[in-house]
């Protein structure tokens, strides 16, 4: 799904929310968590995806990021990094030089042309030979494939284990979970009897997606994000990327704990 399609899809979802119908909260779904993580993963994904742009900085600066992305259990360990991150981004809004600096810093840390100071690939941290496009890339690609996903590029245009792609996996799945929860809730509210099959399908799907995320985090993302964050802390010359690394590591840790708890509760 391209950016514009995604955007349209979300417009329609947001429209549902905006309809004014009250949304019940119960033991089944923690909407605080589900909605926050959808935002959180998307924000992280976008910040690791490319250098900071003016438009994106404006978006982040115009909201209270902590409020949007931190679910209850993440507030304690992620709060500081999240505030730091937002401050660093907000500082760029009115200061073109600072924005340029952060853009160059992104190149230095993650792109090149010199060896990236903080290589943003799982392979770099976990491949026994420390090569990209090796066994780790392959296993991530196979994971996506088993989940019915593939990256948008030509083969080898990017390694599947680039942090932005791994975060895209979580962002996509967490948003789908939010949507599903929403639809289940709505179906239950409207007319349970005529939708019983539908609800159980949606519910099964929700479980499948959550399982995928738990496995993906355990087998991949969470297995290296800590080391990556440490490296970023050492190598980064900017508050933005130091905080981004810290936030990503803490956020994924909290979310993983939460996912496991959700699973156990089910």
């Amino acid at each position, binding site marked *: 799904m391209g950016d514009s399609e995604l955007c349209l899809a979300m417009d329609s979802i947001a429209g549902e929310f905006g309809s004014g119908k009250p949304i019940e909260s119960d033991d089944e779904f923690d909407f605080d968590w589900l909605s926050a993580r959808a935002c959180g993963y998307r*924000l992280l994904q976008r910040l690791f995806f490319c250098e900071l742009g003016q438009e994106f900085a404006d978006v982040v600066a115009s909201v209270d990021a902590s409020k*949007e992305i931190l679910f209850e259990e993440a507030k304690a360990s992620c709060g500081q990094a999240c505030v730091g991150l937002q401050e660093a981004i907000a500082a760029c809004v009115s200061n073109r030089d600072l924005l340029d600096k952060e853009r*160059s810093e992104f190149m230095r840390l993650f*792109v090149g042309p010199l*060896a990236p100071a903080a290589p943003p690939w799982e392979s770099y941290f976990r491949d026994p*030979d420390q*090569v990209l496009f090796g066994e780790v*890339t*392959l296993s991530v690609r196979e994971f996506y494939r088993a989940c019915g996903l593939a990256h948008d590029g030509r083969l080898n245009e990017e390694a599947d284990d680039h942090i932005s792609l791994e975060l895209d996996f979580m962002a996509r799945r967490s948003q789908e979970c939010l949507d599903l929860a929403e639809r289940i809730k709505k179906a239950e509210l409207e007319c349970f009897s005529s939708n019983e099959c539908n609800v159980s399908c949606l519910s099964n799907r929700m479980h499948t997606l959550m399982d995928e995320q738990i496995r993906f985090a355990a087998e991949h993302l969470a297995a290296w994000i800590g080391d990556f964050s440490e490296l970023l802390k050492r190598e980064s010359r900017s508050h933005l990327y130091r905080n981004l690394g810290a936030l990503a590591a803490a956020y994924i840790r909290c979310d993983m704990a939460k996912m496991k708890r959700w699973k156990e509760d089910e």
Partner: protein
Amino acid sequence: MNKNHEHYQGALVSRRRFLRATTAAGVAVAACGVTGLHDIAVADGKSTDSEEGTWIPASCTCVCGSGRCVNKVLVKDGTIIRQKTDEMFEDTEWAPQLRGCIRGRSQRKSVLGVDRLRYPMKRKNWQPGGGESSHGELRGVDEWERITWDEALDLTASELNRIREQYGNDAICGGWAFGPARLLGAIGGAVRAWGSVSLGAWAGVLDPMTGTPYMTMYNGAGSINDRLNFRKAKLIVIWGANPAWSAAANAIHVLKAKQAGAKIIVVDPMCSDSAIAYADQWISIRPSTDTAMLLAVAYHMIENNLQDQDFLDSYCVGFDSDHMPEGHEGEENFKDYVLGTYDNTPKTPDWASEICGVDAAVIKALAEEIATTKPMSFVSGYAPARTYGGEQYCQAFLTVGWMTGNVGKAGACVGVSSNTNAFNGGPMLIQQGADGLPAFPNAVQPYAYAVKTAPPAEDTNWHGPVADEMWESVVSGKYTAGTRGEQPIKIKAITHFNTGNPLNQMPNLNKGIEAHRAVDFVVAVDYFPSTSVRYADIILPLSHPWEQWGSFAGINVLNRENFSWGSRVIEPLYETHDDLWIETEVARRMGVDAQSFAPFSSEQCVFNTVVGTKVVKEDGVTYENLAQVTEDDLEEFAKLGITGTPQDGRVPILELKQQGVYRVERSENDNFGYIAYKDFVDDPEANPLNTESGKFEICCPALSLKTTAYGWTELPAIPKYQVPKRGYEESKEGDYPLQLITPHYMRRAHSIYDNNPWLREAFPQELFINADDAAARGIEDGDVVECFNEFGRVLRHATVTQRLHPGVVAMGEGAWARIDEETGLDVAGATNSLQGCFPSGQGTQCWNTNVVQVEKSNRSLDEDYLVEPRVIEETKE
């Protein structure tokens, strides 16, 4: 959970809005190569490869000179799993397997490394237009932006166009004269540095003295016997060669000769890994003093009448006054020079010992041994000729060899052995075809790498500095042009298209950085951020030969017995493109007709090369097509847009492609052996050499004239010891008491692989220093030391050893310089950081003639494998 509904409602709306905004906000250029994931149909989700994967023949892309060892790569699901080497052929006495060395076997670490160049990049503060806007002073320290291919190609072409129109084509420097340079030719030419480079003075000496065309008989391969013939020698003297590092696959030929009974004597400032493996005796000698030692060997032979006088009288000119070349009677002859007739200095072993540091007794013993042991093979590497005035070494070496009469017979030869022909001389048994691309001669500088086509010194139509002077000339605006003397030059752009890593690999690296900072524009094409790339304005990322259907490095016959065809192993990484594509795109934007520049694809080039390749028949004289092509094959190739005609040949072309290697089978009494100069020795009247006299020229007036005409040094027609600049004599007097040699190192092939993490760990860029010299400076093994002279200063760990002649330090050439801007220190240890501008002879770079000082440093230095690209500790699970 019981939370307030209203609160949730508000939060959800806000979060949905945020989610929408973060997803939608504009993306100029995606820094991650792809935007994200998308759903796929389940049917697409299957891996196409078998569980085990597929083995694909891959090229070994380095230029070590070994001649294409077998390299195969296991690919699964488009991903490289691992490599292996030769298991196709049985390892036999006559045909050792073509096993790769650590460099070839670790190639996967390079190709898939985190430091691959991924995208076209632009230096942040560079703007086209020249002058102030180029901010040249920031090259090497500036920040970078990612740009699109179109932006990068447009900027490159428009800036080169501007410079070409404003200043002329001779304001464009095309690095040095490696590679085909079709692009530079097509745009009207460019200045390229020339020189003998790796080959040392040999390239310009072998031809006039022996009549052996240097490059047509690849790199001196015509001057020595083939590998099986070496097994017939009783004695092999190896002067300044270390194939275990510099031509690893060929070192086994010497081992086989040793097993067959040859005694091996190695003369070298370093007890090399080769010497450790096979030498019976190591004669430790000071660098750049070989000529003195050789003269003393000659003296001892003359004094004891040990020389093969019949051979000298019949086959050589210039040894004594009775055998001078026609028209030069009465001029100085070798024997009288050695005896001291002209200068009252007999070149005795005692005289030489003072200079070369070898005991007189050892010199005498060597003289006696080589004069009395037959058959004897007398073999030189390039290194002793990669010296100041290296021509004199080549003259002396050949002369002493000829004095023993060991030429043209089984087990006997006198010549140069290195690179792919190391210990395996003779014509190519497989001759590579041509790719068929049209040539675009360089109108500004028509001369290429090495003296195969170096500028005839007396000609007046050539332009361009020798490698030593290249960077100096950019800064100073002048260079030496042979008999024309100093000429003006004004370089405004430096381009590194298809030309290697010249900033790192040409002499005077620090001056080179100054030169790169002085011009309007620098563009570099590479796989990795090599030194030349670091100081560029625009970087164009190149696909690796493993990612190309075939390429120069993919298909090559360098070893006389082997043909190697590397296939595409994986799809190109990121946004990389091959040379032909990049050059065509630049050429087109500079007004060159793309169709005439690249009339067909890279794939067609490879096909042409293969179908044009010839293999020797059993008679050892005539050749036939290697590849057989049928109509069915052509149908297959047509799918790739390749056209051709059917032809007979030895191996079906698809079988050849699948195997990736073809090897001419050798056996003891086959017709593929080679004894250098045998025809001449058998019948000198019927088969004269292609020299002025038709004989070996100990006195070689043509060599003298040609060399002197280059304008740097005068070379006598007979071998003489002339004190070199930057040699032992200077080390005794000046501020720099140690001699530096810069061997080809196992970590790299020149500068290739310097970024390979395995190799960085296995072979740190160490500074080898003799234990006595270390002790005198309070240096212990592993200490951080600074090695410096007036041209630069490097920081390295010392390796204290007895394997190096006292007074000598050694560092492998090719490490990618890392200049610390504050201190000026090169913390990577590039040897050209210490190399000044000292051109000599016929454009010979004196990389083994240099003086330095070494001091213990109080600075800290990480081990090589811990820096760029660094190795990290394993994840704790």
